[in-house]
């Protein structure tokens, strides 16, 4: 006899491991097939804009604007999926992850302009340096919980950004200019590759002991500890991994944007947007950050405007955020996994569980 679902246990997180019914398994196969097709298209279609394709007579299916938007979407997939590891899986909502974006970006900028490293080698640094930094401050930082952790991580982001802004070694307030590399295609593929990497890593993590351990930490850290999860190690590892991925995005961005300074590289809005994307898509899931990044970036691009219109767009964005948080705390993925459907009853249950 199954009792009524207990609202106290309904943590609002989408189950990472959906109940394996045949219907759900079939749905998952369809989604995977669709994703595979989408990836193939994403890789092949942009090739129509190369010179070889043009001279072969192929129509150019994508233009500069498309490249810019798609690359930005891919970048946010990386940042959002990276946040998902520490904020969604482990349950430690870091609000200052953009600090690793900045460290990665500046690592590339400094190594290329000052020490004549190749871009490829510098990208390696943009992964390692943020991870090392995260490993270092993660140990004391992850001892904090909830609000305190969020605020501390935010504080670190602001502090590091300010310090870099004041040091001439990093170009101070005027920032650093990279040598110009003009290639929509290159940066698109780099970001796409990073995005695929981020999703693949999330997929692997959720299938291994590491992922189960992180979710156990999120659900009940005390219980996780007594059944043998080394909580400190796992948390710091997740934090460092998310830093590495975020740093990679920053490193690619530095060369793509050609210019880095504090405003560009340590922009708190990037952190907030990436969290919002994970939220809309589905925190703690594999595809949530992907869907969220695509949807939100699409909204931002579509409604971006000048002057008064830009202001109205921001208001719209704020309203979208508010509505999403209230009515869709588990994100859109919840409806694809077969767990719920968007009905009035679902909305009412959500409101009753979250509100007062």
């Amino acid at each position, binding site marked *: 006899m199954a009792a009524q679902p207990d609202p106290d246990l309904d943590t609002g997180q989408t189950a990472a491991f959906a109940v394996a019914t045949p219907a759900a398994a079939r749905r998952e196969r369809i989604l995977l097939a669709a994703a595979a097709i989408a990836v193939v298209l994403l890789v092949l279609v942009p090739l129509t804009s190369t010179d070889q394709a043009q001279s072969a007579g192929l129509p150019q299916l994508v233009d500069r604007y498309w490249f810019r938007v798609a690359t930005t979407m891919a970048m946010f997939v990386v940042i959002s999926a990276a946040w998902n590891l520490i904020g969604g899986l482990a349950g430690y909502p870091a609000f200052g992850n953009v600090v690793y974006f900045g460290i990665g970006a500046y690592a590339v900028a400094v190594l290329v302009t000052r020490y004549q490293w190749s871009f490829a080698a510098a990208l390696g640094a943009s992964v390692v340096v943020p991870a090392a930094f995260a490993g270092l401050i993660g140990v004391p930082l992850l001892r904090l919980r909830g609000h305190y952790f969020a605020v501390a991580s935010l504080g670190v982001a602001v502090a590091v950004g300010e310090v870099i802004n*004041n040091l001439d070694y990093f170009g101070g307030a005027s920032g650093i200019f990279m040598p110009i590399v003009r290639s929509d295609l290159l940066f698109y593929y780099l970001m796409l590759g990073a995005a695929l990497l981020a999703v693949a890593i999330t997929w692997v993590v959720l299938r291994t002991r590491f992922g189960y351990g992180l979710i156990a930490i999120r659900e009940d850290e005390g219980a996780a500890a007594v059944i043998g999860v080394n909580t400190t190690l796992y948390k710091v590892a997740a934090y460092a991994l998310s830093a590495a991925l975020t740093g990679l995005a920053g490193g690619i961005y530095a060369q793509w944007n050609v210019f880095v300074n504090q405003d560009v590289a340590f922009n708190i809005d990037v952190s907030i947007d990436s*969290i919002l994307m994970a939220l809309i898509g589905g925190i703690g899931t594999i595809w949530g950050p992907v869907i969220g990044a695509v949807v939100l970036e699409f909204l931002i691009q579509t409604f971006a405007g000048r002057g008064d219109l830009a202001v109205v767009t921001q208001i719209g964005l704020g309203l979208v955020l508010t509505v999403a948080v209230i009515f869709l705390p588990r994100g859109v993925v919840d409806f694809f996994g077969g767990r719920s459907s968007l009905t009035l009853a679902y909305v009412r249950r959500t409101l009753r*569980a979250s509100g007062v």
Partner: protein
Amino acid sequence: MNWTEQVVLGLLLGGVYVAVGLGFSLVWGVLNIVNLAYGAMVMIGGYVTWLLFAHAGIDPFIGIPINVAILFGIGYTLQYVVINRVVRAPFLYTFLITFGLDLVIVNALLLVFKADFRSVNTWYSGAAFSVGPVLVPYIRLWSLVVAAALAAVMWWILNRTRTGDAIQAVGADRDAAQLVGISLPRTYALTFGLGAACAGVAGALIVTYQAVTPTAGEPYTLQAFVVVILGGLGRVSATVVGGMLFGLVQVLAQGAPHIGAGYQNAIAFGVLVLVLLLRPQGLLGRTV
């Protein structure tokens, strides 16, 4: 600037920080809501005061009660209608919703008032009096007095009234409070309204010596963070200590020889992170 001047100015500045911190601390300590729109509410307070002054000639300090009433109403409504929908969810959601509200408020202000800087210049704006070697501007003195009065009023409400009992009960144990008949939605709305009222007062004080513009609110949210974390959550005395201390730190840091003005924020956040790592409950707070 010599030591005494710095200390006095630090204390005067601290008064404003106390006002800034009170509303933030109350809402965080009791409702467990970190209000990222707090700075924007401070700006609303500034604009209300400016409007009253520019269009009705009302002195900024005299206009404070009107300011309080308006901000209380805004805060109460926001909490009752919007934020109450997510207070039982993991705190991430209230964090995000207040961020959304911040976006809406700041941009609504931009739409209405444009990005121009507004300030309030009264006939006594420049005047000061001497206490020994130190020159104390009247504006700063009144600000300190108002901040002290606000702290006293808040303490009185929280510790000497039934409303305050209800608020503290909800903060201590929400479900138990409900069981004894306290209305959660209304108490939450009341608390947030009080927090907003404090933000309004802070805004009124700020606009007398600094220009306001819709986007200038963010630093105040961040400063409120530091004040609360320095002093400790929830208790008026903790916020007073945190505010005064932060004021002193700011002035001393600004005056220090090697540290340029650019490092101000970095110092503030360095302090924040250090306190969080070493003593997260702040100087006066209960153990986290």
